[in-house]
């Protein structure tokens, strides 16, 4: 289990990037709910969009170390990306974490510690919570696996 609680995950869960206590006042911000009814984890993601560009991502809410660290890393990684790039990134991430883990098209080194979750299938939703909320937003018509 030490493996799942990799220092990266602990670090991000203890001091997450782009975390805020309360929602922003900004009315333009895109607000996504990432709720896992199975465990009660609940994050709200705030996307500051500039046309096709994701200028900044922030989040608030409550969740376990794994889901919090993943959300934190995601906010870092998506900052400054275009929507198209983000879709590829998210899809690659899902492939790496859930599917066969085969060669992603993007560099996802910092997400490698999360691959450990494959040994803890009951924790998979912790990893996918925010990814799926973003996929649902960017590709509302796509059926998830």
């Amino acid at each position, binding site marked *: 289990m030490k493996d799942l609680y990799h220092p990266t995950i602990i670090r991000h869960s*203890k001091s997450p990037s782009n975390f805020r206590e309360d929602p922003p006042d900004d009315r333009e911000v895109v607000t996504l709910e990432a709720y896992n009814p199975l*465990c009660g984890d609940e994050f709200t993601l705030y996307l500051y969009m500039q046309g096709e560009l994701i200028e900044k991502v922030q989040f608030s809410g409550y969740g*376990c170390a*794994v889901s919090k660290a993943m959300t934190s890393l995601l906010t870092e990684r998506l900052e400054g990306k275009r929507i198209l790039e983000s879709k590829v990134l998210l899809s690659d991430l899902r492939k790496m974490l859930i599917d066969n883990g085969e060669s992603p098209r993007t560099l996802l080194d910092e997400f490698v510690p999360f691959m450990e979750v494959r040994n803890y299938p009951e924790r998979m939703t912790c990893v996918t919570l925010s990814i799926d909320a973003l996929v649902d937003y960017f590709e509302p018509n796509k059926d998830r696996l």
Partner: protein
Amino acid sequence: MSVFNNYRIQLDARKLDGMLKLGKHIRKEFPIFQNAPHVYLDSAATSHKPQRVIDAVSRFYSTQYGSIHRALHTRSAEATRIYEMGRSRVEHFIGANKPSEIIFTGGTTESINQVAFGFAVPRIKEGGNIVISAMEHHANFLPWQRICTQYGLSLRRIPLTDAGEIDEVAASELIDENTLITALVQVSNVLGTVNDLNPIIAHAHSLQVPVLVDAAQSIGHMDVNVQALDCDFLAFSGHKMLGPTGVGVLYGKYTYLEQMEPWRFGGEMVLHAGLERSKFKEPPHRFEGGSPHSAGVAGLIAAIDFLEEAGVSNIQRYSDQLLSHMIDQLQAEEDVQILADPKQRSGLVSFVLKDIHPHDVASILGETNIAIRAGHHCAQPLLRDLGIPVTNRASIHCYNDEDDIEALMDGIRRVKSYFH
């Protein structure tokens, strides 16, 4: 109610010694502890099974099996005898008046659904209400919610005191002449509270309101006697009382059972299946449509044997002390917050670690084979009231001992070391 409390009972080490037959000693009779050693602090979700229960199920299939009630050959007669003996054993175990007050079900959930849809629904009148408490398990919440939504009744939730007990004063206001039924939990699966239901039941009865008691967490942990409780229905599950999965009990006072309609329709429940109308058997058979889980009843008998030999009151005394010890230890640990502070508590405690999500706690404990539970414990309305999405829960049964508590505390310290 305050989430933090100062629950503290002095552990009497000598008394614990005096009950050595429980704990480590009795644990030997539970094969899972030999085959897959672990610290099991999740008995409130489901209990482990002594060899005797496992053997009773095997023996039933290997030597006594046949259909129930349906045939005249010997195999069938033997299986039927055991099944009906199970009814009598349960009758005596909970102090019912006669075997026909005992209905075998799939579990607490099914028992409560049977009462909700078979007993409460036919009694519905306009302006009626159903009263539950704020600490009910979903099994004793969702069926009533369904009925209330469907038929336009109001669902009243008795609030809790700050200590985490059902508020008796509020109860006596909420239960009124228009109450169809009141359904209350005896021991909360989140807070561990032992509710003193007698005064509430007395009040309900003064208004002719029938009362169902959810005994899922109390059965096997304390003497549950339907005469002493004076409840009208009682529901519990085999799997939480050292028995098999898939079997449970609904007790009902016979006069109420006579008024109750079947909820599941099938074989062995009708006297006469007419093309226009059918005539149902007398209770309990009319509620047991379909081939019963006879092997489950065979195992349940063995579980009752086991509990009675160990002595439910011994188990209660032992586990009260062990629980106090656990609470002491948790209290003494920095950054641990315990939920609720009831006068009487049974078998379990919910707690949270400061700034560490309960799932992380349970996961990391799981790594060293310490099983506790993290979640909403199927009591979302209660946790919402408390403002906590999820908690950690450690629960015990007769096979736990101080070493388990020590392992838990070590584990908690390890969890903290990860994060702090």
